[in-house]
């Protein structure tokens, strides 16, 4: 039982009595990755929020054994558009991280430190937001469409990173409609 990060049993969710999904069960062990697939509006993001404990399911039960040890990136990137890249990194609490320089270089964000986030492109903002994930050190990583907005090169950086985390016995849950090479099992919701 020690290896288990999350057990979900028969989850369902309704908004105003309209069913979004129902009967979802899965479990996630350390070193496993779960790829959630489903059409638009099928409730993928909601499922992620249920996993994070932000939303509670209408029915069913979810148990997480990683309380508060999660990094998450949703489609809202939690960046402050009126602050510079550097200030945003400080705000994320990553300014003293030992790998910061390496990743700034890898993601070619290094020259942008003084620029306001409002003036960055969508892809650049996405990369900045992903720093949370790259530099986080948590047992569970939850990502909502992480590959959207990234070019092939950066998609590869991300999927390589995720594969490496799996070897470090971390758990990953993500949604994506872009195909990627992350060793994962698939969960379809409709």
């Amino acid at each position, binding site marked *: 039982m020690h290896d288990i990060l999350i057990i979900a049993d028969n989850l369902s969710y309704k*908004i*105003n*009595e*309209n069913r979004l999904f129902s009967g979802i069960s899965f479990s996630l062990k350390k070193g496993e990755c779960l790829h959630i697939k489903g059409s638009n509006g099928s409730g993928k993001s909601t499922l992620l929020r249920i996993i994070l404990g932000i939303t509670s399911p209408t029915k069913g039960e979810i148990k997480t054994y990683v309380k508060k040890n999660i990094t998450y990136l949703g489609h809202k990137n939690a960046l402050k558009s009126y602050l510079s890249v550097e200030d945003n990194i400080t705000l994320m609490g990553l300014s003293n991280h030992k790998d910061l320089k390496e990743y700034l270089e890898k993601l070619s964000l290094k020259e942008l430190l003084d620029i306001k986030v409002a003036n960055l492109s969508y892809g650049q903002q996405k990369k900045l937001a992903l720093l949370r994930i790259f530099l986080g050190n948590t047992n569970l990583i939850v990502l909502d469409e992480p590959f959207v907005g990234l070019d092939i090169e950066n998609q590869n950086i991300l999927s390589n990173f995720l594969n490496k985390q799996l070897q470090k016995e971390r758990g990953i849950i993500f949604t994506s409609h872009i195909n990627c090479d992350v060793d994962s099992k698939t969960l379809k919701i409709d």
Partner: protein
Amino acid sequence: MFQVERAYKFILYSSLIIYIVSLIWGLLFTQEDFVQGNSYRIIYLHVPASFLSQSLYISMAVASFVYIVWRVKLAAYLVISIAPIGALTTFIALTSGSIWGIPTWGTWWQWDARITSTLILFIMYLGLISLHSSFSNYEKADKLLSWLAIVGAINIPIIKKSVDWWSTLHQSASITLTDKPSIDPSMLYPLIGSMIGFFGIIISLVIISSKYQIFLREKNKSWIKEYV
């Protein structure tokens, strides 16, 4: 459901009859007040309305508490069903009070303790209704509404006390459970009758309103489809 339907019709009609009888009794068959003349007769509307405006709020707060703690969905429906009726009752209490104030005090509005706190109660009801209607996700709206109702319930006595402290002009309550009533028995009986009648009318209004809420929110459930 059919029993409820019958019960509520029974309550509505019987309380309407009680209220009308007491009104006729109070308006036509009691003496004029020594000081206030005929104008006092508005108490058959004013007193029950003022009394219920607060009781309704309290019951709403209790239902909110039940919803927050035990997640009983019906309690949430009850909260939002009571709110507009509470607002209506408070409005009746305010306007009837104003009408009564013109001959008695010579003014239709006084910034005294009870009027002011009733006005605030009215604003709170409106705040609750507008808060609930500003959300399209019902469950979210229910939760926020319940929180506000509970916070308001803590605040109402505070507001009342402080406004009371600030100034007082209003005559003290005429009927209390412990003291001997300071009102002539010939006026008292129709007053009690009108309170019971008014109470019944409000109860049946709450039932109608809750029924509407349940239909609105559970419209996809099969038993509703059968019922309709």
